[in-house]
């Protein structure tokens, strides 16, 4: 049966549709198997770790950057006003790089488009970047100050920068530079250590730490720093020359070991360090103020002025009136005390012009009202422009109270003596303000009457080679103090020094009183046993002097000389 053309076409179409159906069914079946295959393959890829890291070609245009730029200019579509990145190794370019200009440009750009803020995925990232930027700004500021020599400002800037970015190794290293310039070597060393911990390859930090350490005398550590630098940069000239210099230094150190050991012998004793003239610091010497604490309370120093200003006039009027009464009233009590003062005024040329007046004045200021029960006669003498001014300072009483040993004493003598003692202190105070500060103390003016055996011993050590000064000093001590003052510590040396000075200055002083009081010092008999023949000769001469003067009965002198083991 013949089929028409139309029919044939219909059949073909049907066949084709069937074929397509089959094709598609096949394809879909294939797709299913492919899906499972590819899944397997993907899993392999993920877990297989066939991580054969190929040698990738370098990033484009990093090495031949300059060449590229030239060619690009010829290009019609060349990159034109794009800021170009300078490679870290392109030192020439960095030398020409104008940081300020770049910073200004960045600032300008930031104003122009705020889109740069969205460059970072998170706020934290952006904040960090911003802080790093700020740290760099501070660094540049610091560098500027450093150049100008304003080290304090530079340090401030670097410190701020470090607060912004604690990971920047340059900031502490630069601060160390500024500290070095200020000769704060220990701080500089610390900063350098911080910098090195941040960037162990930062050569400048090593150099600076080495120079800080060398200045601190840590030569070995400085040497190790320099050798580290040479390890990093074998051609570093500074390190080389410094190493040579240091080696010489260390050699010299070894040649003069005696000098250095000297300082180590006695703890707390500072001895001058010997240095070669060329090594000596060129920096001007600084005056260092040393204030003494403990021996005299500082409060004492301003009280005279207080009294001087406010009460001095009234006092000076009153004292004249009170003076006569006082002398008569307190005569018996005053006796030993005033006699010692009399002696003092006779013997001390420096105080020749002083009028010493025992005055009894009621305490006047607020402070003294708390202690109205203690109104002791006090002595205040003052030398100023050869003028005599006497006044009473209520705070004297306070001072006396502060020394419990004196305060507790009940006998009139000891009551008097602290006052006279502190009075003397007072008197010397104005001049001491000047003299003490200068670090020198004149024996006659600077050293006050000792209140403790320790103080006496210290003074004794200072004065034992100056007989006159020592005599003056000893004279100022009321004999009644001796027992307290020396306690157990009167040794033969000390005793002989006292006796010799007495023998050398035989005069109208109350020699008997002094000798008696001395003999009453504890363990005195023990001390006398250590006296040599020549020493005893001195004592003998003193006794002879006493008996000649005839101020005391012979019996007393005899018993006294027995006490001195004659």
């Amino acid at each position, binding site marked *: 049966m013949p089929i028409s053309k139309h029919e044939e076409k219909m059949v*073909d179409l049907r066949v084709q549709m069937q074929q397509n159906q089959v094709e*598609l069914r096949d394809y879909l079946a294939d797709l299913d198997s492919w899906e499972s295959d*590819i899944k397997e393959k993907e899993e392999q*890829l993920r877990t297989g770790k066939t991580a054969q890291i190929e040698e*990738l070609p370098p990033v484009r245009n990093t090495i031949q950057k300059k060449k590229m730029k030239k060619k690009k200019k010829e290009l019609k*579509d060349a990159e*034109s006003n794009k800021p170009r990145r300078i490679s870290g190794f392109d030192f020439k370019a960095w030398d020409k790089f104008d940081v300020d200009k770049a910073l200004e440009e960045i600032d300008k750009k930031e104003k122009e488009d705020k889109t740069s803020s969205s460059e970072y995925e998170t706020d934290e990232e952006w904040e960090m970047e911003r802080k790093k930027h700020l740290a760099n700004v501070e660094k540049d500021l610091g560098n500027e100050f450093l150049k100008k020599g304003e080290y304090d400002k530079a340090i401030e800037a670097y410190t701020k920068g470090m607060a912004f970015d604690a990971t920047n190794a340059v900031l502490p290293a630069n601060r160390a530079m500024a500290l070095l310039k200020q000769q704060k070597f220990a701080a500089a060393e610390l900063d350098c250590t911080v910098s090195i911990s941040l960037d162990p390859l930062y050569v400048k930090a090593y150099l600076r730490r080495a120079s800080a350490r060398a200045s601190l005398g840590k030569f070995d550590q400085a040497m190790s720093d320099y050798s580290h630098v040479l390890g990093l940069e074998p051609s570093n000239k500074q390190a080389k020359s410094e190493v040579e210099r240091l080696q010489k230094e260390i050699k010299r150190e070894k040649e003069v070991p005696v000098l250095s050991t000297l300082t180590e012998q006695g703890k707390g004793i500072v001895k001058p360090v010997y240095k070669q003239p060329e090594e000596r610091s060129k920096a001007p010497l600084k005056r260092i103020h040393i204030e003494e604490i403990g021996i005299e309370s500082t409060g004492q120093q301003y009280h005279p002025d207080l009294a001087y200003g406010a009460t001095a006039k009234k006092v000076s009027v009153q004292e004249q009136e009170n003076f006569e009464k006082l002398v008569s009233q307190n005569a018996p009590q005053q006796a030993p005390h005033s006699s010692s003062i009399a002696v003092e005024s006779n013997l001390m040329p420096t105080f020749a012009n002083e009028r010493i007046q025992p005055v009894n004045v009621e305490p006047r200021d607020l402070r003294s009202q708390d202690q109205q029960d203690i109104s002791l006669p006090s002595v205040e003498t003052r030398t100023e422009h050869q003028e005599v001014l006497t006044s009473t300072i209520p705070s004297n009483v306070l001072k006396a109270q502060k020394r419990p040993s004196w305060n507790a004493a009940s006998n009139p003598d000891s009551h008097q003596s602290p006052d006279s003692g502190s009075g003397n202190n007072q008197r010397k105070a104005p001049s001491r303000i000047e003299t003490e500060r200068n670090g020198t103390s004149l024996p006659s003016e600077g050293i006050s009457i000792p209140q403790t055996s320790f103080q006496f011993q210290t003074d004794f050590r200072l004065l034992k080679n100056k007989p006159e000064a020592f005599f003056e000093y000893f004279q100022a001590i009321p004999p009644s103090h001796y027992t307290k003052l020396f306690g157990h510590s009167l040794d033969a040396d000390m005793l002989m020094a006292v006796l010799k000075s007495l023998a050398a200055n035989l005069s109208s002083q109350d020699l008997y009183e002094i000798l008696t009081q001395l003999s009453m010092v504890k363990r005195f008999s023990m001390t006398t046993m250590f006296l040599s023949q020549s020493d005893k000769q001195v004592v003998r001469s003193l006794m002879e002097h006493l008996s000649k003067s005839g101020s005391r009965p012979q019996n007393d002198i005899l018993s006294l000389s027995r006490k001195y083991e004659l």
Partner: protein
Amino acid sequence: MDKPQIILHIQKCVNYTLYDSKWIPCSAKFVALGNYARGTGALQIYEVSHGDFKVVKDVEKSKPFKCGTFGASSLQNRFLATGDFTGKLQIWNLESLDLPVYSVQAHKEIINSIDGIGGLGIGEGAPEIVTGSRDGIVKVWDPRQKDEPVATMEPEEGEAKRDCWTVAFGDAYSAQDRCVAAGYDNGDIKLFDLRNMALRWETNVKNGVCCLEFDRKDIAMNKLVATTLESKFHVYDMRTQHPSKGFASLTEKAHNSTVWLARHLPQNRDVFMTLGGNGSLNLWKYSYPSSRSKTDGEGVETGVAGTVDLLQNVTLSTQPVSSFDWSPDKMGLSVCTSFDQTIRVIITTKLNTI
């Protein structure tokens, strides 16, 4: 009668505007990129299995995505490079999409087009990404270099900046050779030689260039397809360049609408799909002439263009097709997105018999 059939396999609607879709290499999965109505970016991963595809991952990012590529990533990593509406280039590890592994503000305006090379075993040389943006600048990026492009192509100062609509890598047959083709809204096509850092060729096709694609990226330039507005596309024979005339080409009308895209079949470089503004898909086959070059009167070689034949034509959507991607692993499998917010998985049969 053995014409290939283009069959709609699966389709699914989504709630965002789709701009790009890409098969994840060595998998039955693809990525869809787009823009939520609220102005955020959509990044979804689908897996095809047994006649259906399902969402594997779905993340929303702050900025809408315009385009993406796997071209510069190794097969091991399969990192996706994306360009977004704000001009940011980002590279994502699809295993952990919280933060990009690389991020840079590449352009001031939207990145219209992105292409990658040097990864997936396709193309010799360094992995590189090229981006083209509305700001008129084409930049080449190396994922190993932060913040700065490795090459920039922009108009000289004073010249008008044209909107760059499309970029494509090609000619990457050796570690040094590499070309970037860029198409602009004014019909300009520019070919940049990255080896010499020079403009190698430029032409104007009168209508805005929507898409450029080399038939292969990793061979010496063979063919370049350029699709344009006004329903035309051009095929250039890139083997022979005449000093003045440039490359030989043919022009074909198609779709009766803008030709949005052209995509070459990975398994056959002479077969390609064009996608139209009317939602249609055209499958073409290029036929070479008997001789690809001839010597003109002055003794200079010029190229000879071949011919194209339409193999199949289907219309799947009423809206323009925004993206189309052939699966690199399964011949005939492709994914297609269009502005009707639909993702389609398409099967093309009998491609092996062409």
